[in-house]
């Protein structure tokens, strides 16, 4: 076991995370908070005039994180322009196409001759940001998730949760969960824990499942709260602490994403989403070949 462990530690891990949602929901701030990075430091916000002409883009930022000798190559895929136009019909298409392209590239590499250093750019997880200002899911949210739930693991996030009171958070979470079920959206399912796990773990697991969508707050600034310096947001009426589980689900999300479920997210991507894509690909290729063969047979006779 230690040999396998040492080998993977040497190689390092990689993880591709996509963030999607309207602009202004705190996506960049959350990414920076989650991974304690400065990925968006030099970002220039588009002005109003530029936004009018903007189309949906896909951007990638990669960062290497090292902790206690373990290296993680993290790739963040962002979708600026999504949901920002007056007419957002099919604005999810560029995103779906990007995901498919990564699958296609992997498929080619995997079917090729030299498979030593295949680069895995497949998207392992998509954090979809739901606005806290709506009454649950908006039509665009439903359309996006339905278009992508068969392609990538979707983890819904309730953004900017510091604008909601505790009863409002509960209400919105319940409503969103109910709507996700009603519309048949298949979000990422946490694997059921084994029946022989201890009670604490089971309770924790249950709590995690009931926290969906994660109500998060992000911050790039450090504030002084209760005598300690913490990541937070300073308001005239109080201080919001990002890492306080009583204030928001940030810690739950980070634990899930990095500490407990990263490998499962990659496994599901590989075993389910990628396999679906590959099967479809092969089927359509086979269909083409059969069609070609039939055509040739017909022309010969």
């Amino acid at each position, binding site marked *: 076991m230690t040999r396998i462990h040492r080998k993977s530690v040497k190689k390092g891990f990689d993880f591709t995370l996509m963030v999607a949602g309207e602009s202004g929901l705190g996506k960049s701030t959350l990414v920076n908070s989650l991974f304690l990075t400065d990925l968006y430091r030099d970002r220039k916000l588009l002005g109003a005039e530029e936004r009018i002409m903007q189309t949906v883009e896909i951007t990638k930022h990669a960062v290497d994180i090292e902790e206690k000798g373990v290296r993680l190559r993290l790739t963040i895929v962002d979708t600026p322009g999504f949901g920002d136009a007056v007419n957002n019909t099919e604005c999810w298409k560029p995103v779906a196409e990007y995901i498919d392209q990564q699958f296609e590239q992997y498929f080619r590499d995997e079917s090729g001759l030299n498979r030593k250093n295949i680069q895995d750019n497949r998207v392992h997880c998509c954090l979809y940001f739901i606005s806290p200002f709506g009454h649950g899911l908006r039509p665009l949210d439903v359309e996006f998730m339905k278009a992508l739930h068969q392609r990538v693991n979707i983890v819904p996030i309730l953004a900017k949760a510091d604008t909601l009171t505790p009863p409002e958070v509960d209400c919105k979470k319940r*409503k969103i969960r109910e709507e996700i079920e009603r519309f048949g959206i298949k979000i990422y399912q946490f694997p059921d824990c084994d029946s022989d796990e201890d009670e604490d773990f089971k309770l924790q697991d249950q709590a995690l499942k009931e926290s969906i969508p994660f109500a998060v707050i992000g911050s790039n600034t450090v504030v002084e709260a209760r005598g300690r310096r913490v990541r937070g947001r300073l308001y005239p009426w109080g201080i919001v602490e990002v890492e306080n589980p009583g204030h928001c689900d940030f810690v739950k999300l980070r634990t899930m994403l990095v500490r407990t479920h990263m490998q499962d997210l990659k496994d599901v991507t590989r075993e389910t989403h990628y396999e679906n894509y590959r099967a479809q690909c092969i089927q359509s290729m086979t269909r083409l070949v059969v069609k070609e063969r039939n055509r040739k047979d017909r022309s010969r006779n």
Partner: protein
Amino acid sequence: MDPLRRSPSPCSSSRPSSPSTPPCETLGPVGIEAVLDQLKIKAMKMGFEFNIMVVGQSGLGKSTMVNTLFKSKVWKSNPPGLGVPTPQTLQLHSVTHVIEEKGVKLKLTVTDTPGFGDQINNDKCWDPILGYINEQYERYLQEEILITRQRHIPDTRVHCCVYFVPPTGHCLRPLDIEFLQRLCRTVNVVPVIARADSLTMEEREAFRRRIQQNLRTHCIDVYPQKCFDEDINDKILNSKLRDRIPFAVVGADREHLVNGRCVLGRKTKWGIIEVENMAHCEFPLLRDLLIRSHLQDLKDITHNVHYENYRVIRLNESHLLPRGPGWVNLAPASPGQLTSPRPLKVCRGAHDDSEDEF
């Protein structure tokens, strides 16, 4: 029609008083101030009408804001989260209440616009709103051109449109700009930053400056419009307001105990946001603007500018020229002409008292 229209100065003939008319020399007090009392009594008897419209995406706190403004359950706001499903098309609906305070009656009509900007494709989602506003102008016009007119024409025209900008913290969205550009030419628009409790003070200021810049770049003239400042006092007062617009507002219809006082606010885990506390949000500025200081001004500009613009265009369409006595039957307005942006005609107060066109 309008109880507070300035009465003509006793010295000149039938023209309204202007700054260049020299004051009369009087030999003793005549008791002119009593006219103010007469106006006041008349106003109290007749009451005021005020119509506002709230526009913005669902969930931005429009209904709550209206309830907070008028300290009454104008809208029975839905409990959080269990609201009605987003309507598929934009529907407007109005609610009228009479609010009475110290003997003064205010007939308040609030028009809500659920479904605005909520669809995937929001192209032309402003058309029903423009249509509604113009319909109210049309209604008034039809009443005004009758031979036998009512003593007091019921005024359903929208005096103020409060536009709720979502607190993204970045800048105005394309939808905001499209809407504001079209509506500022038809009605008084007051933009506000909705749900401002999601922004820290620095974020608010930066957002506000960016919005102001966006408004300037796209030539969007929000209320109070610079060109209508009548004198230096107006200018000073309105400049202060223009510096703070859009106001960062928070609405609440629940009361909480803070330091022994009962205040309207939102209770979160990290503190209570007091709606009427200027250190927390700018709701008092919005309330003062709409009710305490600029209510009459909003009505005046609606009547003297926006309605007049509408009237001129309609009359030109119908090729009307003074033909002598008779009731003129106007052709119904075609929807296309009324929803495209028109240049804003200036000259407030050009409205003449003379009605000898008909």
